[in-house]
């Protein structure tokens, strides 16, 4: 009994998130007259959510170190645009590059972006929010320059590339498979490897991490580079899914990703955050995006509702945290 109790109290965030997800799903199912929990809609929703969920893992790493990365929307756009440009020219020459190579190019661009962010934050000691805010401008500007005012349309990507998002492997959508793989890797990386634990250590206290012999600079660079790589992957998948790459792709996407992390219980001050929580946060956000049009919420209301839910949940999170701390204090007194 005691074990069950401890399990509940240590996973209170995840459990409350699951409850919220179930309640919202039931509500939407009733309101939409049974159009929400159909296998087709669930499939749609999971596809929509996959990219967001993938991105949220990377952002979790960065936020755990006590930083934040506002440049990922621009990184996604830049890496997708570079990858897309290669693809376009190869398709035009009648000899399309293999999908894997395009994905690798995009990830490489993302890694470079992430490395720059990491270097600015760790070596030059610029506050993450300012560094990535500035880099966001630069990456976005670079995206426009690469795009040169034109879009890369579905036809120019060639049918082969689009199967990356629409194709299925053993009856499961590719995007979903990629997301699952990313999550399995992230779960073991964050929880069960030395490097993963070092990220948590740096986030809890950079100073004590340094004193205990962790090369904090390297860990920071690593976290931002992982974020960059994931943003590269997410960018190319996003473009593949929607079939268009342009200068404005993913503008403001970083807000969605940060929101998913915060909903998932990642503390913005660093040091805490779990992979399952982030997954639930991303699912909750993705579900809201999918459900609001279904129950005929006007598109003008969606922004405000989304913002309201984020604000509500971070305040609820803070209240839960306070409660937990008070309880812990009481236990110590007895």
């Amino acid at each position: 009994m005691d074990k069950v109790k401890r399990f509940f109290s240590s996973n209170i965030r995840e459990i409350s998130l699951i409850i919220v997800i179930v309640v919202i799903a039931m509500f939407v199912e009733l309101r939409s007259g049974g159009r929400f929990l159909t296998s087709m809609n669930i499939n749609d929703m999971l596809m929509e959510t996959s990219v967001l969920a993938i991105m949220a893992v990377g952002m979790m790493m960065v936020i755990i170190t006590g930083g934040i990365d506002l440049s990922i929307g621009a990184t996604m756009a830049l890496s997708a645009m570079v990858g897309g440009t290669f693809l376009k020219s190869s398709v035009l020459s009648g000899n399309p590059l293999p999908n894997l190579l395009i994905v690798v190019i995009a990830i490489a661009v993302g890694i470079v972006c992430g490395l720059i962010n990491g270097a600015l934050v760790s070596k030059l000691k610029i506050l993450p929010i300012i560094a990535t805010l500035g880099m966001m401008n630069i990456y976005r500007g670079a995206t426009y320059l690469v795009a040169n005012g034109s879009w890369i349309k579905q036809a120019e990507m060639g049918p082969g590339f689009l199967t990356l998002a629409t194709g299925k492997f053993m009856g499961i959508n590719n995007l979903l498979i990629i997301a699952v793989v990313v999550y399995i890797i992230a779960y073991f990386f964050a929880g069960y490897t030395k490097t993963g634990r070092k990220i948590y250590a740096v986030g809890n206290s950079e100073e004590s991490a340094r004193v205990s012999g962790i090369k904090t600079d390297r860990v920071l660079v690593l976290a931002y580079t992982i974020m960059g790589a994931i943003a590269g992957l997410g960018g190319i998948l996003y473009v593949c899914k929607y079939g268009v790459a342009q200068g404005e792709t993913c503008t403001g996407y970083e807000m969605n990703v940060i929101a998913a992390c915060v909903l998932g219980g990642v503390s913005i001050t660093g040091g805490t955050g779990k992979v399952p929580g982030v997954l639930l946060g991303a699912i909750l956000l993705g579900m809201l995006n999918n459900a609001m049009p279904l129950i005929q919420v006007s598109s003008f209301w969606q922004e405000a509702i989304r913002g309201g839910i984020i604000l509500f949940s971070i305040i609820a999170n803070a209240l839960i945290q306070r409660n937990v701390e008070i309880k812990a204090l009481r236990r110590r007194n007895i």
Partner: protein
Amino acid sequence: MAKEIIRQAVSADGTRTIQAERSFELKRFFLQWEWMLVLMLILVNIFNISASPNYANVKGILNATRDFLDKAIVVFPMAFVLMLGEIDISVASIMALSATIMGVVFQTTQNMVLAIFAGLVAGTVCGFINGIILAKFPELSSMIVTLSTQIIFRGIAQIILETQSISGFPSWFQQVAAGKVGYIPYALIFVVVEALFFAYLLHYTKFGRRTIAMGNSVTVAKYSGIKTDRTKIIIFTMVGLLSAVAAVYLASKMSSVRSDVAKGYELDIIAMAVLGGISTSGGKGRILGASLAILVIGYLRYGLGLINASSQIIMIVVGILLIVAVAIPNLKGSVGQANWIKNLKRMFIKQKN
């Protein structure tokens, strides 16, 4: 260089600052970050003059300010927020919401004065909401809170206006942005007065010293008897009010109101304050620096517009400027903004050895 020890102490009411005497040193005087900004400003203006022959006169230079006065209005209260060690990302959305409310009130009552008043009240309320959430939940980071209120405020503006725009304001209202005394736009006079007011508030009043004390350490400030919650709420409310003032100016400049006005302004506003040497970790900075930085970024944008540089180039330039400005003082362990040249020197000397 002679070693100097400067002691600062804030007493219980946050008033007294004890400072060890230090002699006026020419070298130290010229090592201030503000001179760097002056240099940048001169360079930018040389660039602008070479870009356009019509620019190099009093009229041209003063007219160019109208481009960035809307942002300038919000930079000073934003400097206070950064001084606290907080950040407010929702300013652009507050501008959009108060402009929207102004437009709607005008549409229903046809009374412009009432509309402006309603807009100002809306902005103030938005700022107050930010402030009260942050004061009641000090464990929440201001970035996350203002991130979500940013979505909410613009969302409300979207709910109210959907995709329509409101125009047809009375002709006197256009004079708010277009009117001039001689060559000087009204709004420029307003911003100069505002800058003087905020400089006085920050550097010469109890309130300003309390803000700096809180930026250095909220806990220490709290235990030395500063009402930290109240100060925080006042500052965020101030940001809201002045965002609404900026919205009035913006509406007058564009003579119409839409829910997507001022998108992305928060970035420029924060960039201006940070370039001006206001430390984002709190407790450091001067209004003079922020004022100069407004001119640097403002004229730079204007000049890049003169040579028809595409907006993407402008984005890149502003981004680089922001990062370089923050990076320079940090080049070798962040000692202080005044020491940036010394740090640069030290770094080079170390590498030679």
